[in-house]
């Protein structure tokens, strides 16, 4: 069984924000809600700058899921963490819990008014029928059901962002690492998939130096 994961290759990511706009375009996500964002570390510092694109990592032991007071999260066979907006009460707890800042809210008002949580769906829609209008309006397109991979990864300008079966993307990534002999860290995997990642989805064990974050 495929276990969907993202890898963002910091040796490639150039902060072009294609992944961000691809997501906006594909799902018509409103202004202010960013299912994906790009972060640059040590911006402008010679020899130290790295950019990384981040969205929901679809964690194995997902903190968002655990804290949700109405238990509206569920996980698909592919390991994609989804939620039901009809149930969500907009309490914001998932966003406090998520290590990656993935959950987003259309508003951020006084009295804790946030609206329904929105986050990256790995382009897998939501609980509504696949490809239905209701699904699109609430969660955006369901690309997985169309046999397509996430829009962000597909359109990434440098293919820094890989989204797909954890084993496969790890293979692709490992291949690159071997060729360039560096940049072996798989960003975010330690945090998202924990110490005992799903069977068959071990983070690519490459060059020994460096650790996962």
């Amino acid at each position, binding site marked *: 069984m495929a276990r969907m994961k993202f890898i963002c290759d*910091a040796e490639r990511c150039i902060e072009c*924000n294609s992944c961000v706009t691809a997501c906006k375009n594909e799902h018509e996500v409103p202004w*202010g809600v*960013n299912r994906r*964002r*790009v*972060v*640059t*570390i*040590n*911006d*402008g*510092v*010679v*020899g*130290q700058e*790295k950019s*990384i694109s*981040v969205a929901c990592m679809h964690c194995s032991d997902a*903190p968002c899921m*655990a*804290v*949700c*007071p*109405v*238990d*509206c999260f569920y996980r698909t066979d592919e390991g994609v963490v989804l939620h*039901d907006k*009809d*149930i*969500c*009460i*907009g*309490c*914001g*707890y998932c966003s*406090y*819990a*998520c*290590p*990656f*800042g993935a959950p987003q809210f259309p508003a*951020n*008002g*006084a*009295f*804790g*008014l946030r609206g329904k949580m929105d986050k990256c769906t790995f382009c897998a829609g939501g609980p509504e029928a696949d490809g239905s209008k209701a699904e699109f309006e609430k969660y955006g397109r369901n690309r997985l059901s169309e046999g397509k991979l996430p829009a962000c990864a597909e359109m990434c300008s440098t293919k820094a962002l890989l989204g797909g079966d954890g084993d496969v993307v790890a293979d692709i990534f490992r291949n690159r690492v071997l060729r360039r002999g*560096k*940049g*072996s*860290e798989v*960003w*975010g995997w330690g*945090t998202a998939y924990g110490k005992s990642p799903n069977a068959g989805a071990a983070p690519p064990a490459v060059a020994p*130096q*460096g*650790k*996962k*974050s």
Partner: protein
Amino acid sequence: EIKTPVPAEGIVVSTPPQVPPGVASAPSPGFPGIESDDILKQNQAQRNEVQPGNASPTWRVIKEGTHNYSSLPALEAGVLIQPKAQFPGQARATTAGEAWRQYRNGPLTTFGGWLLIAAVVGLALAYFIGGKIRMKAPMTGRLIERFTSFERIVHWTVAITFVTLAFTGIAILFGKYVVLPIFGHTLFGWIAYAGKNIHNFVGPVFAVSLLVMFVTYVRDNLPTLTDLKWMTRLGGLIGKGHAHAGRFNGGEKVWFWFGVVVLGLIVSASGFVLDMLVPGLVYSRGNMQVANLIHLVAAVLVSAMSLGHIYLGTIGMEGAYAAMRHGYVDDTWAKEHHDLWYDDVASGKVPRVRSPEGAARVGAPVKAV
């Protein structure tokens, strides 16, 4: 035609390492046995020189939860992974979100749940074993105005908002374990949605009425030596004879000071933060986590305490509810429970009637409730 390079004499190729502004180059907690301390001090540029391609310093920066650059204006857009945190009692630091989740979903949910259950069980035992505290002497028919209508309005405003908050708040915390399995997702979702919004709006009303209550009730709740004695005798359970008490006894004062004032204020203050009503505050995830934990602990404690108060105010003690409902108590009740206060009323130090409309009713017997 390419010749072997002959670098000019004395040429040393190097880019002076830079330290980013605001990013401390100080080492993060070490990883014993993996890297020497020295290496931990290297920034990425320095590391590149000795170990090209090793990006550990960068990954460390990420794990420290630093605010990095992101072109998006959102508050924490530049934070890749939440910084590490370790709440009291936790074995090791994890990302703050994870630490919060473990704390909230772990001990707080568990102990909080048990505490509330224990409180209910305890009161049930008190009721079924100890029984209702009844007046020993017959009623005199002579009434004392114990609470003016204003005092009562204040009390009931607080009480009603409190109960609302407690129910809705507890639904947020425990609903999914208790209510959800019964009602199912959709129905519970609606209930929780309504409850959450009610909670968020009623909260401030509670907080304001709480302040009024404080002003209204503080005078007679000022602690005295009598209260200490009352407490050492646990309100008369230990020793013989009635424990002396003023208008409010030691127990009530504990409720007032610790339950109402301290916990109430903590719950309110943290509630205002959670409601994002405090101007100038940064509503970061970290702040919200802390506010939530404080709110939660205080809320559970105050809820548990309130159970005791409500018990005594209703089925636990004869005549108490009437006092708060209508404002009047019988001389007997006053004598038996608040003897010092009764003395003051009897001696005229404290007027028997304090509100103008009260005069009419005093003297006439009050219907039993």
